[in-house]
């Protein structure tokens, strides 16, 4: 595969169709700038400011863009809020739709047949594989990204969040919690 990709890049560059420096820039963007920290900042703001949370509920695209994170062309954001009664989980069963601007590029498991096939049918067992166990009373709400909407799960805040600053809160927010396969305080903080 290495050779096939290199050959295609050489071919397209020679034909003047692709600028390799633009590829470098795209790679650098996702390796160093765009990742789950963006989403963590959105969540921390939502926990800290009621007005921002309300804006996220009504127009997540604009609310998220106000923090400087714009989604790719064609993509509209939607924020879904966990509560004591409902736990949200996101998948794309048809491909790998994922909110790149707030979470970076999707992990391999998100794109895998195992996750895509099972989480719509048996989300509880999938969540258990991530160490998340919910009571039967909690409804699990699965969002299948079949169009141009991209979903960001706003997890429930940790105890005592009211007295914490946004930076401190953002450190507690994991990527998995923002996909819905993690809970706050259940795993490592977002790197």
């Amino acid at each position: 595969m290495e050779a096939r990709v290199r050959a295609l890049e050489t071919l397209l560059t020679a034909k003047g169709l692709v600028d390799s420096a633009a590829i470098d820039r795209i790679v650098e963007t996702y390796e160093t700038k765009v990742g789950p920290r963006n989403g963590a900042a959105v969540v921390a703001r939502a926990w800290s400011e009621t007005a921002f949370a309300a804006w996220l509920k009504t127009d997540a695209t604009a609310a998220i863009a106000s923090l400087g994170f714009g989604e790719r062309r064609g993509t509209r954001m939607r924020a879904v809020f966990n509560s004591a009664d409902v736990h949200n989980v996101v998948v794309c069963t048809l491909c790998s739709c994922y909110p790149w601007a707030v979470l970076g590029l999707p992990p391999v498991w998100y794109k895998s047949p195992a996750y895509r096939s099972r989480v719509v049918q048996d989300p509880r067992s999938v969540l258990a594989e991530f160490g998340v166990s919910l009571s039967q009373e909690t409804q699990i709400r699965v969002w299948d990204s079949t169009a141009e909407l991209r979903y960001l799960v706003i997890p429930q805040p940790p105890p005592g969040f009211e007295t914490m600053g946004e930076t401190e809160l953002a450190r507690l927010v994991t990527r998995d919690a923002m996909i819905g396969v993690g809970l706050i305080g259940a795993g490592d903080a977002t790197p």
Partner: protein
Amino acid sequence: MNDPHDLGGQIGFGLVNPEAAEPVFHHDWEKRALGLSLCASCLGAWTLDECRHAYEIIPPTDYLRASYYEIWMGGLETLLERHGFVTCQELLTGIPEGTAEPVSCILRPDMVDDMLAAGPTELVISDKPRFSPGDRVVTRKKRPQGHTRLPRYARGKTGFVEAICGSYAFADANAHGKGPSPQWLYTVAFHGSELWGPASSDNIKVSIDAWETYLELARQ
């Protein structure tokens, strides 16, 4: 199409195996594959929907064996050849034959940030939405011949309209060069038992985002 990409509800793929401290890329070639795909899409010759369809027509035995970026590369080669940017021979040898027609829209480094943050592209339509939040609807059961964003597990099922999400290019037409033909898009939610039978006592609800022609009002 009923192709291997349509995975919701299929069985036999085993456990989900999250990788601890997963890197952004596992191989250097994945970085170039991502960049090449995004640069090539900026040539403007195909839509995201056509691109998705190019992945979906990879033969099932190859699709299910391929890593995700391998699927991307397979689709990209199909699209480049289909739209006349490269020939089959060039793909085989990697050697350019003659020069390409000049293309005006080459992605340059200073355009990358804007490209990655361009945001939504809703398309205004004059028709009012046919459905309202709370409506009970049935999804189309017909087996599609080409690209669709109506997953197999959610066909012929009864659900509820939860939200009207704006109007967008209709993927099923746009994937086949028939233009955007925008339609209203709705979030439609189904109870687990509707999708998976009475054994699904799991207190789950699953939603899809469905274009208007995927839906009919349910008989009361």
